[in-house]
Every structure is written in structure tokens, then in C-alpha cells.
């Protein structure tokens, strides 16, 4: 595996805020690439294809995602089931899950020179919170411990198209992905559309601030993959020159 070919100079990790003071100055050779986008936007498909492609090019790849920490994801499931769980509580639970992924998976992988393909990152969490009326500044401060990614892609798919894609794999819309906890609409469909539009608007707000690259996710998967691949490989090659 050609981990040396990526970038022979280790560069210091950057954090959005105060970071993780107890880990000290950290230089890594790996790269953090984030793929964001709503449920059913095709993220998982893209990540699978990109992982194969990057590995074929000789890069070592690690995949991470939200609600992946064995321990805390169970807590999140329980919290969602428990009536009366507040939105900030859920928000903090997700932040704990993310911190666990960041410290136990992402950072070690970056230290070892891996490319980390993150299936969603803090932006989905911040968008969900903002749409629910939580203070944006508080959320930004909360995630001050997050590492600044090298590349961030945001898959854009219109809400009606998302509905079709969801129904291709299951016959209901997820309660939270439809914003049903927010009382946005009388039926799940209209709630979903309204909610996803609000989330998309939130992402547009964050695009410039966080230097996100919007990607049209409505095209055929292979076309989307080709664009992502070109951008990622272009970035990686640019790093070694």
C-alpha cells in the first residue's frame, strides 16, 4: 500500500475551536474527506465506490459515520424511544457519539496515514439542531473539538426525489428524517418535504462558512462518483506536488 505516495510531510491537525487540548500538537499524514447529504441522497453508495477506487489507487481507507459507536448508538436509540427526551439531550448524545468516533477512529486513522471517508460529519448534526430552533452559536461552540476536514462534499438531492429513493428501499419515511417531532405537517409526506427543505437551506448557509463543495446528487450514481473521484484524486495528487 502506497501510503507514502499521499503526502510525505505530516501537517498539523486543525480544529474548529479549542479542539482536544489533552492530545497536544498533532501532525498527521492522513486526510479527512467528508461526504454529507440527506438520507437516501446516495452517500453510502458513493462511499463504497470511492473506497474501492481509492484502494485500487493504493490508498488505505477507513470509513466512519454517525451513530456508529457501539456503546452510545444504543443510548441514542433508547433516548429516541423514551417519551419526553428533549432535543438538546438528543443533540448532546449525538455529539458524544461523534466525539467517540473522532477520537477512537478518525484521529488514530489520520495519524496512521489513512484516508478517512466520513459518512456525514458535524454539519448534519448542526443542521438538525438549527432547524429545531437550537442556538447556532451554541452548536458551533459544542463542536469546537472537531477536526477541520480536508475536503467536504455536500450531496444535493431535491426532497421529492429523496422520497422516491427512500420508498425504493423501504415503505415508510423515517420519523426524524421527516421532522415529525417538529409538527411541520399533517402527514408524513408533507412534513418530510418541508423538513428536508429546511435542512437543505441550513446546508446552503453553511456552505461558504465551512468551504463545502456542493455536488448534484440527482445524476446517475456513476456520474456522481466520477465527479467525486476526480475532485478527490486531484486533491490528493495536488498534495504530493
Amino acid at each position: 500500500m502506497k501510503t507514502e505516495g499521499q503526502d510525505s510531510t505530516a501537517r498539523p491537525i486543525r480544529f474548529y475551536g479549542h479542539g482536544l487540548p489533552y492530545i497536544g500538537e498533532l501532525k498527521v499524514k492522513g486526510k479527512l474527506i467528508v461526504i454529507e447529504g440527506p438520507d437516501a441522497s446516495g452517500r453510502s453508495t458513493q462511499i463504497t465506490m470511492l473506497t474501492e477506487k481509492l484502494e485500487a489507487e493504493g490508498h488505505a481507507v477507513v470509513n466512519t459515520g454517525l451513530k456508529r459507536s457501539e456503546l452510545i448508538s444504543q443510548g441514542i436509540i433508547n433516548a429516541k424511544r423514551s417519551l419526553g427526551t428533549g432535543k438538546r439531550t438528543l443533540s448532546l448524545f449525538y455529539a458524544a457519539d461523534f466525539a467517540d468516533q473522532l477520537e477512537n477512529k478518525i484521529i488514530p486513522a489520520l495519524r496512521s496515514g489513512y484516508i478517512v471517508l466520513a459518512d456525514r460529519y458535524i454539519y448534519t448534526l448542526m443542521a438538525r439542531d438549527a432547524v429545531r430552533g437550537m442556538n447556532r452559536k451554541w452548536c458551533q461552540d459544542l463542536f469546537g473539538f472537531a477536526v477541520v476536514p480536508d475536503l467536504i462534499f455536500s450531496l444535493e438531492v431535491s426532497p421529492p426525489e429523496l422520497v422516491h429513493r427512500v420508498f425504493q428501499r423501504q415503505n415508510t419515511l423515517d420519523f426524524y428524517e421527516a421532522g415529525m417531532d417538529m409538527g411541520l405537517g399533517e402527514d408524513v409526506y408533507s412534513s418530510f418535504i418541508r423538513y428536508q427543505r429546511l435542512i437543505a437551506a441550513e446546508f446552503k448557509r453553511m456552505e461558504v462558512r465551512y468551504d463545502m463543495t456542493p455536488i448534484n446528487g440527482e445524476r446517475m450514481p456513476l456520474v456522481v462518483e466520477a465527479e467525486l473521484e476526480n475532485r478527490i484524486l486531484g486533491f490528493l495528487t495536488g498534495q504530493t506536488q
Partner: protein
Amino acid sequence: MITRHPTREARTDGWLIAAEGIDGSGKSTQVHLLEQWLRQGGLRVFKTEWNSSDVVKEITSKGKKKGTLTPTTFSLLHATDFDDRYERNILPLLHAGYWVLADRYVYTAYARDAVRGCHPAWIRRLYSFARRPDIVFYFQVPVDVAVNRILSGRPKLKYYEAGMDLNLSNDVFESYRIFQSRVTKEYESMVRPEGFVVVDGSLRIEEQQRLVRDKVSELMPKEVVSKTMGRTGLENRGPG
């Protein structure tokens, strides 16, 4: 934290009293006695304790057993626990006019998380949604006194409880001592800026409780104090 009557937030009718101090400082005893006194006076009281959210405590407990909790994850899980109790119990009950007694409040996190290396400003912003208590009692004892109270029974000290994740010592008891010393230092640095009411933990229990009740009485309208509370309820006890 939010101050008692911020312009943007609704006033609440209840009162929030917090008790802080390291383990073995006698704080829980004092909170219990305070609770009894208030109840006997016919007041509506609710007591909340650290790490007690039904939705979170199991996860925190499992995480602690595995020993894989980083300082940030540790901090966030405790914040989740606190927030669950805050949104479910503390805030609604304050709105309902209850006396809410918190055995440990945000300052526990400020102290412990800082000792673990989390950035102090980050911790404070994390808890910025929490209302400032009307009184914060800080039960101050020399570290060795508190530590010896806990260790005298040679209990089984748990990994994070002893601060073993900080590599302070290979010996769990020594680690516990050092950890509690550092937490105490953090508390001491908060006394002035946070306006703690310091209670000398080496006084007799009854004397401490008299101080606590006197202070709490200041929050009550005069008629309530003389009629229902019978001053501090400790008049019949002789000098120590």
C-alpha cells in the same frame, strides 16, 4: 449560565439550590437534611443527583466499565445526563414553583472535565443553557479529610472515579488522592468568580446545616420563615 431573571427568558417561581464539593465533603448529608427541613415546612421539593438520568446513566456506566471514554466523550455523556434531568425535571419544576435541590450541578463538570484536560471555556459554553442557581453551597474540607473518609472503608474505587485515565499513579488509591486534589483546586478557583457560599466541612453536621438553613431562609419571605419553618429547626440542640 443564565442568571436568575434574564430579560429573554421566562421567570420561574421556584428556587434552585446547588451543593458542590468533592466526595467525602459531607455535601450529600447536608442536602438530605435541607430537603427534610423544606418538606417538613410543607414546601414542594425536588432533589436531583449527578449521573442519574434513566436515559443516559446506563450508557455512561457501561462506557466507564470499558475504560474507553476519552475526556471529551466523558464530558459530553455527563452533559447529556445533566441536560436530560434539566429539561425533564429541573426546569419544569422550577416553573412549577418547586425548590429544586441539586446534589452537584454544572460546577462538578467544570472541575472534573478541566482536570481531564477539556478546555475550560468549552465546558462553560457547553453548559451555558443551565440556569444559575440561587445559592451554590461549596462544602470545603481539606482534601485528605475527605479522601480518608472515603478510603477508610477500603472501598473498591472505580477507574474513572480514581482518575486512573489520567495516569496519575499506578496505585488506585494514590491516583484517587491526586485526582481529588486537582478537582479541589478547580473548585477553589471558582469560589469567588462563581459566588459560592463556602461551608466549612469540618464543622459539626448540625452547625453546617444551621448555616445552610439560615442562608436558604434568606430566600423566603419573612412570614413563611417564622410561621412554617420555625426558624432553622435546630434551636433545641446544645452547643457542640
